[in-house]
């Protein structure tokens, strides 16, 4: 499993669609007048990301989102092209109330068509053997 640390998942490219921003802002219930010219801070999640495989994780099949830290650069604008790549940054094992857990930290970098990093996301995923 630890061999996967440092591995970068497949790079994905997406165009930031105005309609997708409108639907996202409606779904979160945010009427900020800056949208949809600008994307809301967590909109980038909806682009999807290719997380590198975690081999031998069969004993901890359940994944739970533990949280994220986001750092922002220039705003993400409707019409931008954003390239996304996710690296498995670290793995930790812990004994929890419900058995063994594996805590994985992924770093996703979002880069626009000008080569500017528009956001970096560190996401913690907690993997467990039992339900949620």
């Amino acid at each position, binding site marked *: 499993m630890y061999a996967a640390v440092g591995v970068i998942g497949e790079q994905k490219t997406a165009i930031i669609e105005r309609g997708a921003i409108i639907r996202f802002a409606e779904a979160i219930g945010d009427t900020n007048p800056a949208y949809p010219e600008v994307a*809301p801070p967590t909109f980038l999640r*909806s682009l*999807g990301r290719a997380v590198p495989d975690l081999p031998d994780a069969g004993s901890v099949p359940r994944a739970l989102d533990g949280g994220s830290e986001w750092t*922002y650069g220039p705003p993400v604008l409707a019409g931008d092209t954003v390239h996304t790549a996710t690296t498995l940054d670290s793995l930790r094992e812990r004994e929890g109330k419900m058995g063994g857990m594996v805590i994985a930290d992924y770093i996703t970098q979002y880069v626009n068509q000008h080569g500017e990093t528009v956001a970096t996301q560190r996401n913690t995923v907690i993997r467990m053997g039992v339900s949620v």
Partner: protein
Amino acid sequence: MSEQPNIHDISIGFQLPALVKRPTPRQLVQYAGASGDFYEIHYDKDFAIAQGLPGVIIHGALKSAWIAQVVTDWMGPAGSLRSFSVRYRGMDVPGDALTCTAKVVEKDEVAGIVRCEIELADGAGVVTTTGEATVGLPGR
């Protein structure tokens, strides 16, 4: 929208206007579609109960959108969200009223930056989600 805040008039301890959300199962379906997160625990009650949950639960990422919104609603068009973090401590269910509160805990007047601590509490007042944000504010 309230008046544009500026770095000079904001002091440590300042409470941002609270944000109240009353998510419905319909909103969770809407968010699943808009975000592409189709994990069934967020819209299929039978599936959620079979997983040992009380029923469908709110996407963590949807709560993170509100943790950011309480700040972006306040900072105004001249403010900028530099960074924010969110940590999930407990789950939330639709039908409850969720309140996001935030306060300024640090300020760098020269750099024009404040740091805010953010909490999301359920209808019983239990904090289920916490966060932090760094915000750039203009001068006067």
